[in-house]
């Protein structure tokens, strides 16, 4: 059997999701944002929601997400995506409404919007890309930065007396009465990617079916900000990030 016998449409097992358009993504090589984008595109396609999805993009590296995933998007002011999503879902209850936010966007400037939208039980899904750093602006410390972790604004490592402690916002979200589904996943291995896909699918279905607020944290790498190769960044994440942000469901009422 030659390669040409194998490369035929009937033998296709994986291709770029159709909803992910041909625009090259501006993310750094190996960035977790790309994998998360692919999953979202696959899921929306599998749900047949291409024409009935409204996504809210953040400020942060994912600010241009609307250039890549071919659904309707609104670009929110920094951190305000959950407030925008709340309004959209209330006005348009039959839509799948989700936000896509980094940790600086969601757990720093937008902490208030995030917690209140979740606590109100808005029927929205929040996809939270936690790379423990402000990627877009050059790798500054975020509330989610690990103790001892070096960033451009804490070059000697985060110290409790000077910088306080990492904010476990997903754990807070799980304690709120408005949330139905809160989970923490990752996209560094094939097995982890499969689990994240299931988690995002559930969060999207919860939004569509009006079943309260869902939060999917994706513990992610920012290899550029962490100053590592993509492979090293995945290893570093396993060794350090998962201690602070252990993977698994924190809450699932459905």
């Amino acid at each position: 059997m030659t390669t040409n016998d194998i490369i035929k449409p009937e033998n296709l097992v994986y291709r770029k999701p159709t909803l992910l358009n041909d625009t090259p993504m501006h993310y750094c090589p190996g960035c977790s944002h790309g994998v998360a984008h692919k999953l979202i595109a696959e899921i929306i396609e599998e749900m047949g929601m291409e024409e009935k999805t409204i996504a809210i993009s953040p400020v942060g590296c994912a600010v241009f997400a609307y250039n890549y995933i071919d659904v309707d998007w609104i670009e929110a002011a920094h951190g305000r995506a959950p407030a925008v999503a709340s309004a959209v879902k209330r006005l348009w209850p039959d839509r799948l409404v989700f936000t896509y936010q980094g940790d600086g966007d969601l757990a720093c400037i937008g902490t208030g919007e995030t917690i209140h939208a979740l606590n109100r039980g808005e029927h929205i899904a929040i996809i939270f890309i936690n790379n423990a750093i402000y990627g877009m602006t050059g790798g500054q410390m975020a509330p989610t930065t690990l103790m001892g972790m070096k960033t451009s604004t804490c070059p000697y490592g985060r110290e409790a007396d000077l910088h306080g402690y990492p904010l476990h916002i997903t754990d807070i979200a799980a304690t709120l009465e408005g949330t139905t589904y809160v989970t923490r996943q990752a996209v560094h291995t094939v097995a982890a990617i499969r689990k994240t896909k299931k988690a995002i699918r559930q969060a999207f279905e919860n939004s569509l079916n009006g079943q309260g607020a869902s939060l999917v944290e994706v513990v992610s790498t920012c290899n550029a900000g962490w100053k590592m190769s993509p492979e090293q960044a995945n290893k570093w994440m396993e060794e350090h990030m998962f201690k602070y942000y252990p993977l698994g469901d924190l809450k699932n009422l459905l």
Partner: protein
Amino acid sequence: MGKIKGAIIVDTERCKGCGLCAVACPLHVLELTKREVNKKGYSFARQIMEDTCNGCASCAVICPDACITVYKKKEE
């Protein structure tokens, strides 16, 4: 039962040379170019082992830029 054989196509112009596909492939089918670069100036992934791929799609699933298409077929 026939053996499963796979084949991949890498969109080398879309590739950013992150190398994660080569790490993910259990059969070590992929490698980054050492000298050659694409139009973006990146090394890119390419298949170095003909005939070894079994179509598991690990490389394609992990690729952050969705550069890899995977096919598989059972040998008759």
